[in-house]
């Protein structure tokens, strides 16, 4: 037993175990979120949603996953085979790293690094490369247009995302997730969402755009580009993109709850339940948006970013810096 604990003390083993745990968490969450998304859509539209597989359709995502796994892998003619298959893998792989530095509880963290925020932002930025490769590699005009949109959108929205994160970094004086959480454990009002409401809103809107969720789901705009960048993907290629989309939802919601909603802090329950609860509340809000709003237009999306969000977040950042300096 002690030997086993000693083994855990080895940072490499610890990291490996954490990675495996995170991958399991992501896979499980993917299944749950697909189910929840479909149920939320169903209830909003006043129908039962999936119902037939398992009690109340609980096993539906499993059946869908099995179907996707069992499908033939098709590569379109004249597509770039290597890029075509690299894209879904590249889209999914960074997710595991993104969740590593996020504390799910006071001690439940895969990798406690000082630049955790930066790590997450850097690795989540890889996703856009995957969409770009998918669009280019599949030799399809719709996919290409979707990829072009994805690049423009992600590049634009990373700026306000970063700027709003910076505000939080300023107030807590750290880029370490654990320390940022620790600074918010003094009751509800110490949460950053109350000290930085504008930054939170900007972060959430940018996160919606970064994860390509409606109303900013332009890269896969169904009614314009049929399916956008993943038009040509079927089977597990599509499955991985799908899983990646839901995983990124978890990543951004986890980051949002750590940065703004106090992370694992909360009374009565243990930290990880609070953390999960906050993540799911944000994800539910994202789903609620998706099933309520129409899609914005591409230029409106960029206008919103460049003309509103970036100036606003810059002003917010400067105000934060000023106030912090004055208080000091």
């Amino acid at each position, binding site marked *: 037993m002690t030997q086993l604990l000693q083994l855990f003390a080895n940072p490499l083993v610890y990291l490996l175990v954490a990675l495996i745990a995170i991958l399991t968490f992501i896979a499980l969450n993917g299944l749950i979120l697909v189910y929840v998304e479909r149920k939320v859509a169903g209830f909003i*539209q006043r129908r039962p949603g999936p119902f037939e597989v398992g009690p109340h359709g609980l096993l539906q995502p499993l059946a869908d996953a099995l179907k996707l796994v069992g499908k033939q892998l098709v590569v379109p003619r004249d597509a770039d085979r290597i890029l075509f298959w690299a894209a879904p893998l590249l889209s999914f792989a960074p997710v595991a790293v993104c969740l590593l530095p996020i504390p799910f509880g006071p001690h439940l963290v895969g990798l406690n690094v000082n630049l955790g925020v930066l790590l997450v932002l850097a690795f989540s930025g890889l996703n856009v490369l995957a969409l770009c490769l998918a669009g280019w590699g599949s030799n399809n005009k719709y996919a290409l247009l979707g990829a072009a949109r994805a690049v423009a959108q992600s590049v634009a929205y990373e700026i306000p995302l970063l700027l709003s994160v910076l505000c939080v970094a300023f107030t807590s004086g750290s880029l370490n997730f654990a320390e940022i959480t620790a600074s918010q454990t003094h009751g509800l009002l110490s949460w950053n969402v109350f000290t930085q409401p504008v930054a939170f809103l900007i972060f959430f809107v940018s996160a919606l755009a970064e994860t390509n969720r409606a109303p900013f789901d332009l890269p896969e705009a169904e009614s314009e580009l049929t399916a956008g960048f993943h038009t040509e993907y079927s089977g597990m290629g599509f499955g991985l993109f799908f899983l990646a989309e839901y995983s990124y939802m978890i990543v951004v919601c986890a980051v949002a709850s750590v940065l703004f909603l106090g992370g694992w802090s909360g009374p009565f329950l243990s930290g990880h339940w609070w953390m999960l609860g906050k993540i799911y509340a944000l994800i539910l809000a994202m789903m609620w948006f998706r099933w*309520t709003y129409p899609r914005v237009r591409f230029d409106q999306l960029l206008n919103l970013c460049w003309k509103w969000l970036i100036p606003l977040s810059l002003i917010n950042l400067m105000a934060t810096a000023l106030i912090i300096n004055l208080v000091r």
Partner: protein
Amino acid sequence: MTTIQKTLKGLWSLIVGLKVTGKEFCKPWITVHYPRQEVTNLESYRGHIDLVPRPDEPKKPLCIVCKRCEEVCPSGCIRVEGHVPGEQTGEARQLLLISNVPLPNSAARDPICAADKTLRVLDGFTLNYNYCSLCGLCVQCCPVSSLTFSSDVYLAGGSRRDFEYDLLRRLKNRKIKV
């Protein structure tokens, strides 16, 4: 100023939208949960046609083999076959006469119907439902109201053959409600 007002109004509209969907989220389902529930308004549904039995003899149709339905059908999916029975006298003949069934005005004016009071017997009445467009013209033109609509909506079949109905056999196999 107006831009900011407009933006605020726009943002408020987004919240109003969320309120609408949020309210609907809490309401119960309105869809009919099919295998467990069924729709209730099937009696007004016009499915494929069926033969109407005689009031006295539920196994025999009212049909007088005038073949008007066959003629009027836009899709040509009705086939009516009948014969004029040979020398029949007495009660057997009386049974075949349907003069006790009142003919509508239009039929009485029609020379064919009015003249021979239909001694013809229906041998076969087939409907190729694959081509039927459910217009209801056959039912409307029937002089003796021998056709009606079934409310059969739960139709599934493995081949086209499944929808070539022998209506006479359907009538004979029909269970009589007591």
